[in-house]
């Protein structure tokens, strides 16, 4: 018995010494997170840094399309989400705006582009490196989206908010800087994307000559896509996921369009010729209701799968800008030529001759912009630019989304501009 006891004690002592030695030989508290990258590790993954920043922007585009469609006359709420209902009715207050998350996502994407630029500078990338051009271009596009849909937005990282027009101007400035580098590097895709962005920013800001100049430089056939995929949850196209027949049906086309829909062909009839317009696909199976169980659901059918991409910009938009600038310059012939060329490309007959009726051409222009840019997130900006919110949707509605309360409250320096004119009037 004594032998067994002392043996056990001896082994115990050995085990204790071994344990202490093992603990002393390494830091027992040292751990690392193998599912995340550290700051240092990314210095050797620069393309992924650039792609991450651009990807973060692109993954916001589907939500941007949804909420601008609801606030404009494209869509109405047919589901149960109070946030959709608020936007449909033109309601939003600071702190409870359903679009806050889009604002925040765009801001974080913009930070990612800026953080990437600092990293690229630190590791010594040339300004003409494609990755630098990529993130600079995307930064400009983000400002453009902010200016188009939000009354005001933070100018920089935690800095003062500026108005939508100022934001559009800032977008133009950034895109021009990116364009210069893209041209030096000979990056055709970014050259076209930057020119298209400058054209749109100028158009929205009322600088029509500049809009025309840059729009004309974008060749036919160009498209800058927001890419979607089914391989991961955020990459799925949420326009389809939440608002399309076959998936969830939380929102559908506004009632004003229903009578124009050919439910057999699943297309909108062109209001001027009665032809089926292949650019505006709308599906309404017999008796289809939204998830509220009562509202007929006319589903957008432009995007049919969760992997369908959404155009951020395209050459057709540039031709529309050319048409609009011509119309604004009272050059109705050029305006009609541009519009009819776009129609001819999809097999639609020319628009009825407007003669010298500029108002008629404006209606054609708006109609064509609706069709060409259907479900691409631009209808809200158009209704605002032509001051049509009240007449199309009724008075007392919000025209753009307010600054995110999250952004306002968490900016370190209390940076909200005192100029109340920059703000959206809150509507309960």
């Amino acid at each position: 018995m004594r032998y067994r006891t002392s043996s056990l004690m001896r082994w115990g002592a050995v085990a204790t010494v071994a344990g202490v030695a093992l603990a002393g030989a390494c830091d027992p508290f040292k751990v690392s997170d193998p599912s995340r990258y550290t700051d240092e590790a990314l210095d050797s993954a620069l393309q992924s840094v650039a792609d991450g920043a651009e990807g973060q922007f692109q993954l916001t585009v589907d939500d941007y399309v949804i909420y601008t469609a609801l606030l404009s006359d494209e869509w109405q709420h047919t589901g149960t989400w109070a946030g959709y209902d608020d936007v449909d009715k033109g309601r939003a207050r600071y702190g409870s705006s359903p679009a806050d998350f889009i604002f925040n996502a765009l801001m974080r994407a913009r930070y990612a582009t800026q953080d990437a630029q600092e990293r690229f500078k630190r590791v010594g990338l040339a300004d003409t490196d494609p990755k630098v051009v990529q993130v600079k271009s995307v930064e400009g596009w983000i400002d453009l989206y902010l200016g188009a849909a939000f009354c005001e937005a933070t100018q920089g990282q935690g800095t003062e908010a500026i108005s939508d027009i100022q934001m559009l101007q800032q977008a133009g400035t950034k895109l021009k800087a990116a364009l210069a580098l893209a041209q030096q590097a000979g990056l055709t895709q970014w050259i076209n994307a930057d020119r298209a962005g400058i054209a749109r920013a100028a158009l929205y800001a009322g600088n029509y000559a500049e809009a025309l100049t840059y729009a004309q430089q974008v060749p036919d056939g160009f498209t800058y896509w927001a890419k979607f995929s089914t391989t991961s949850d955020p990459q799925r196209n949420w326009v389809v996921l939440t608002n399309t027949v076959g998936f969830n049906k939380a929102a559908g086309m506004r009632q004003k369009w229903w009578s124009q829909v050919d439910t057999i062909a699943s297309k909108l009839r062109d209001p001027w010729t009665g032809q089926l317009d292949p650019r505006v696909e709308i599906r309404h199976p017999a008796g289809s209701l939204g998830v509220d169980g009562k509202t007929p659901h006319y589903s957008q059918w432009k995007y049919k799968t969760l992997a369908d991409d959404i155009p951020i910009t395209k050459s057709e938009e540039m031709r529309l800008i050319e048409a609009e600038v011509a119309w604004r310059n009272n050059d109705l012939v050029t305006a009609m030529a541009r519009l009819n060329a776009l129609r001819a490309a999809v097999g639609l007959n020319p628009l009825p001759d407007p003669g010298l009726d500029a108002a008629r051409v404006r209606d054609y222009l708006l109609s064509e912009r609706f069709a060409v840019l259907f479900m691409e997130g631009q209808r809200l900006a158009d209704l605002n630019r032509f001051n049509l919110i009240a007449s199309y949707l009724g008075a007392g509605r919000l025209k753009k989304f307010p600054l995110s309360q999250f952004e306002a409250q968490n900016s370190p320096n209390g940076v909200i501009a005192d100029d109340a004119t920059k703000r959206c009037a809150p509507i309960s």
Partner: protein
Amino acid sequence: MTNRSRQRSLPWLGGGLAALAWTVALLAGSAGALWAQAGVVIGKVTDRSGQPLGSAQVSMPGMQRGIVSDARGEFVIRGLPAGTYTLEVRRIGYRSEAQQVTVPASGSVQVTFALTVSAVSLDEVVVTGTGGGTERRKLGAAVASVEAGMITEETPVASFSSLLQARVPGVRSIGITGGAGSSKDLRIRGTSSMQLRQRPVVYVDGVRIDTKQAQYLGNQSMGTACCAIDGGAGGDRLNDLNPEDIERVEIIKGPAAATLYGSEATNGVIQIFTKKGRASSAPRWSLSYAGGFNRLRPNLGTKLYPRFFSVDAATGDTIWGKDANQAMIESGLHQDVNINVQGGGEALTYFVAGGFLFDEGSIKPNDEKRGNLRVNLNWTATDKWSFEVNSAYTRNSTTLLQSGNNWTSLLGNALLGNPRTASKTRPFGEPWVAIADIKKLHAVSAVDRWTGGLTANFTPLRRFTHRLTLGADVVNEETSKFFPFGSYYTYVNTAGEKDLGYRSFKSLTFDYLGRLSLDLPAGIGSELSFGTQGFWEEDRRNMAVGKGYAGPGVTLVSGGAQTIASELYTKTVNMGIFAQNRFSVRDRLFLTGGFRLDGNSAFGKNYGFQFYPKGDLAYVLSEEGFLPGFISNLKLRAAAGMSGLTPGAFDQFRTFQPLTVLDDNTGVFPDSPGNAELAPEKTLGLEGGIEAGFFQDRLGVDFTVYRQKTSNALLSVPLAASQGFNQGQLQNVGKMQNQGWELALNAAIIESGHFRWSSTVSMDGNRNKILDLGPRAICGVSKLDNKQYCKLGAFRTNYPVNVLFGQTIVGDSALTSGPTASNLWGRTHIRSDTAVYRGDPLPHWTGSVANTFEFGAFRLYGLVSWERGATFNNADRPYAIRFSTGDEYLSTFDFSGPVPVKTYRSDSLQNYFQLVGAFDKRDNIRLRELSLSYQLPATVVSKVGLGRTSLTLSGQNLMWWDNCHCREPNANWQGGSDFGFTTDFLGAPQPRKFVATIRTSF
């Protein structure tokens, strides 16, 4: 599980168990021969009336000898050298007694203990957080204990949660989502952190175990079809424990008592002690079988549905609405069979047990199948060395109930179904997925788990002891959800999908305790405890998704046109040392001081070790002799102590998250800003109380008041979105407080001949309040619109964590008399500009009353509980109304004509709940348990070779009364998630359970 597989399981279980038991018994018998030549004590424990008392602990102070009386109250201690010994007998509910016996050199001596009923238990020995086994009278802080072995004798207990349910003041252990195998809410003294986990740490026989209470294996980037893959009811690894294996549970509730557990102990510590063998005992078999059924109370809000109809668009047939109370609720089979054998020689004892549970939900498909095997061995090698080996294996397989915030929720699709849009394929008017198709889903979680430990006790000197425990908990969990090809599922469409998750959890525990007792002059005693404790924990989760099947027949992930995989991993290492000394003065005044020093891998790299001090005082005033006669026992106590709660395993790191972007390229973007200074939350607990016995201990009172202040509380302090990073920065900036009281009353009201009536009242109150949110997380007036906002939403100073704020209706327009342009009748409501206080999320006051009546061979037991003060976001109400369905909405229709038509009240109601949510009270009174037992006469059962045999009929969760406008006032939408308690959305209610149980021994 099919009937065939059930039939296969039981013989395997029984056969294996028997073989294992006999092997151990042979070993035990041979080990016992070591002491075959010495003296023997043969004893019996009874109550004053002579009724035998089983489960009484018989010990010999200063010796490594101890035994538990069997069901006949008998015990035998062999192998004692000749001499005089002290025997102490303790049993819950009775006064402890000690006797001296003189053992002859050979032969035996007989001794009998007749214990007196006592509602006070100051002599009870507890070991958790006390620096070694210590009598309750010496403790300055509250430590609760639950005699699980006695409870399972009284009423069937299917899960560990049920064992604690409404039995311990300050412990909230309730089912919050119905369904077999679903997760439970387990928390102690309210909400103890704003961000971190809420569950207490749980040890089984000294080994730290996995307590995960939610299955959410889904990775946000995985693109799974819906709502992770757990079906919304969660999953709970504490469900793996077999209550029938448990002898006793000790619960330390706050930092004052839990200091010695250090950085993991703020939420409290639960220690489970499983049953042990019996020395000098032939194999004693116990068998129990419980059979019955689960059935939901028919209170679903679909009773008006049969008064509505629709016309099927395809066939023109009239489809009448279905009431889910009749169409969905079924009886779910419940079966629980357990068998164990206890025995041993003098040196080696064994407890070998096996159990099999089949519990089927009332909404099907949903069931839990659990098999448990346990072997516990105790070996007293010498007078100085003893060893304990515990080994438990569990197989727990759950067919997951589809419920909660889930497109494939069974009840959700039935309750939100609209009878006016029903069709042949969707007879409930299901909004998302046809119930027939949901029933085709195959969603299963299966766990294989081994928990085991080795404890060595070394007593070189009678007053100098050592205990070393090494243990492991290994969990392998597989969860899958298969959407078959051809049926329509929202987001999956008809192409099918398979989601498959694996979780591998490993935890290693190391625990050393040394103890030195000294007698100092002037009647002062000293007990020094010191030691070290640590754990290493690793949690790995892998997941795969297959999508887009070409046709039926293939069920593996690899059959999908598209396959995706992900992997998650965390690792935590904690090591600490501790010491405490307890001084006693004349065995009535006890003063304790101690500390723990901890290091943890989750602390920031610039942060060092954490120091937690403690001190307590206990004074057994009744020893002084000046108290009035009706006070038979009185102890005053006070304690102060600190403990911690560590941040998440990798919260300290500044990280960037990978994400597939731009058509499946790899991208990264800022995720967490990290914090190199990250420290644990520190909670200082102060508590005081009394434990008293009145009228010869027939009435026991245990009352505690406490205040727990947390400093360094972790808050995710958000950065402005323009400053990047998805997550806020975790900072130790907050302060919060819990204060409350706990009261336990035990009364042996009547003990007269064959009739006994005993009663237990358990109550507690708790108020949680945030004291400070740090400089960057304040509430204030926004410059945007001069309104009051709080940056952190549900975190507001002077309110409890996750307080409920919401906009409210402040007015309405005049009543309209007809449809307007927007087709709106009735009133248009006006919503408040800002969110206003709507209620606190957890109850302020909970309690229960249990009564046991015994008359001869009959025993009647009843337990009623109540809760008051909690509010929840009752999301079902507005959702159903927005769906234009549910009894609340449909009741506003005009039923006077052949077809019910909506009225202005319908649209008014809909407009109201388009604008605001519903906040309802969770207050309820619940008849939790009612059971009637009958003990079969010994003269009858002994004829067939059986020992003590009883039959019990019981009902659980039989009825509740509430005013919540809901099905179940305790329901949560997210299973047992730490902070899911503010909202219910389509959670399934708890079923009623009716069970008949027979227990016997042989």
